[in-house]
């Protein structure tokens, strides 16, 4: 019997084997903490905004009342304009005027970070060249480490993310560059549990990104970890002390706390060779760009990830390459613009530890 005749059964078996049985604890913790800060929206607002999916009525099991809502909204707008005219102020439309972001600390403290527009380009912000990591992986002198969950709280995170993060140890007072590990736009929901990359100088001073580091399409905004004051936008910001001497002390002995990961050397295969191998299996075209930036993964254990990679023997390696695939016929939204990214892998388990794309 050809096992591929039954895609349904294959899929179901795959899903059964692949589906996690439980959600990570930190997900529930984050949800409980975040929802604890807000109450549910009033029902009239839910009707106006929808249920978060842009479909206000049908999914909620009630009749739609768009005309009533539109009429109410129209009346409200007319009332506001009329009131404004009567008051002599003239009509004012559009978004609130934002302070012009600068590359230096401004001391400007927004009432809430969510005043900034979410998504899309931020007018007037030119992303400084130094904001992103260099164009090659070699320009990153990185220490990738496993951050222990219990230490996350010492960074001031209300809800710790027991995730891998990156720490760069820089000379005191040095300017720094940073990039966001998770570039997701969380929308206007006020979620603050983004995963971040941290920059910390040799004295244990956190240079950027405490509990608040809102990243938008065209710039990065650094907030003081303690006060949540906006420190700077763009490439540089003033230092923000890490709360608590305990953490500073702990950081100095990070060798014992962190589990250092072997640096990832570049791969040995040429671009032409890698392209030829991909072409051989029909994955790329001659025009596809291929960048040799990752290097190798070496598994010395027998974790599932290692086995999934086909690395069951100690010392076996696989080469990791990044490739831009604009030519592949897939939905356009599936691919961002080609660029350079960097990845790090645990040399023991083969787990992907950290990734970042400019």
């Amino acid at each position, binding site marked *: 019997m050809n096992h591929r005749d039954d895609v349904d059964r294959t899929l179901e078996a795959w*899903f059964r084997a692949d589906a*996690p049985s439980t959600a990570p604890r930190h*997900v529930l913790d984050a*949800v409980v903490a975040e*929802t604890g800060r807000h109450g*549910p929206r009033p029902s009239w607002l839910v009707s106006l905004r929808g249920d978060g*999916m842009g479909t206000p009525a049908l999914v909620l099991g009630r009749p739609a009342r768009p005309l009533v809502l539109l009429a109410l909204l129209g009346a409200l707008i007319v009332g506001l304009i009329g009131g404004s005219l009567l008051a002599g102020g003239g009509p004012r439309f559009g978004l609130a005027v934002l302070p012009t972001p600068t590359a230096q600390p401004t001391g400007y403290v927004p009432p809430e970070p969510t005043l900034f527009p979410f998504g899309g380009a931020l007018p007037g912000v030119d992303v400084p060249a130094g904001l992103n990591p260099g164009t090659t992986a070699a320009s990153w002198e990185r220490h990738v480490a496993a951050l222990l969950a219990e230490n996350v709280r010492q960074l001031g995170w209300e809800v710790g993310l027991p995730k891998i993060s990156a720490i760069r140890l820089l000379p005191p007072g040095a300017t720094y560059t940073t990039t966001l590990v998770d570039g997701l736009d969380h929308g206007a929901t006020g979620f603050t549990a983004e995963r971040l990359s941290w920059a910390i100088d040799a004295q244990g001073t956190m240079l950027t990104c405490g509990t608040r580091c809102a990243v938008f399409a065209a710039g990065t905004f650094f907030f003081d970890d303690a006060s949540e004051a906006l420190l700077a936008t763009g490439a540089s910001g003033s230092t923000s002390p890490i709360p608590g001497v305990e953490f500073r002390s702990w950081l100095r002995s990070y060798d014992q706390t962190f589990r250092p990961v072997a640096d990832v050397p570049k791969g040995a295969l040429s671009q032409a060779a890698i392209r030829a191998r991909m072409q051989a299996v029909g994955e790329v075209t001659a025009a596809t760009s291929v960048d040799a930036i990752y290097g190798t993964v070496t598994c010395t254990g027998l974790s599932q990830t290692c086995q999934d990679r*086909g690395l069951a023997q100690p010392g076996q390696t696989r080469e990791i390459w990044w490739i831009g*695939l604009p030519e592949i016929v897939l939905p356009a939204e599936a691919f961002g613009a080609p660029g350079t990214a960097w990845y790090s892998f645990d040399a023991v388990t083969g787990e992907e530890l950290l990734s970042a794309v400019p």
Partner: protein
Amino acid sequence: MQRDLVEQARQGDHAAFTALVTGSINGLYATARLILRSDDLADDAVQDALLRAWLGIRGLRDPDRFEAWLRRLTVHACYRAARHTRRRRIFEIHDLPFSGPTTADGQLSLAIRDQLERGFQRLAPEQRAVVVVHHYLDLPDAEAADVLGIPIGTLKSRLNRAKSALRAALAAEDREPTITEGAVR
């Protein structure tokens, strides 16, 4: 019992909402993880969906539809997560001869899984969601269409296209599994 909790949550009872979430989060997370193929994205999608659920729970008129509503919020959160993620692809090249599990069954299983993963990653998020809702949640067509927010006809055609693509991916099994592809951020 759940209906009571939903009613209490609609009144702003955070403890009731927490109890509801605690009972549902594992299934939602598994669904998101299967659709998105990424722990991190699944984390984000489930958090996003549940926060939206809390904020919008007063708009839920029928407490009996709470579970279906959560599923739908989660699926849509998966779409958002997939859309907003700058996608990159990694290709892993075996520098040494393939040396997987020693048993023949193990090799076969690994190869199929590899092909499925590759084929699944190629699907649009909407197609992946259809496959997961149909084959993992095992919902009747009407309920699956409701969760996905699409007509039943669209569900069926989308499912057929997705399965055709996966069949094609599996048909490539005879190729030597020298490259593993993953979509990453």
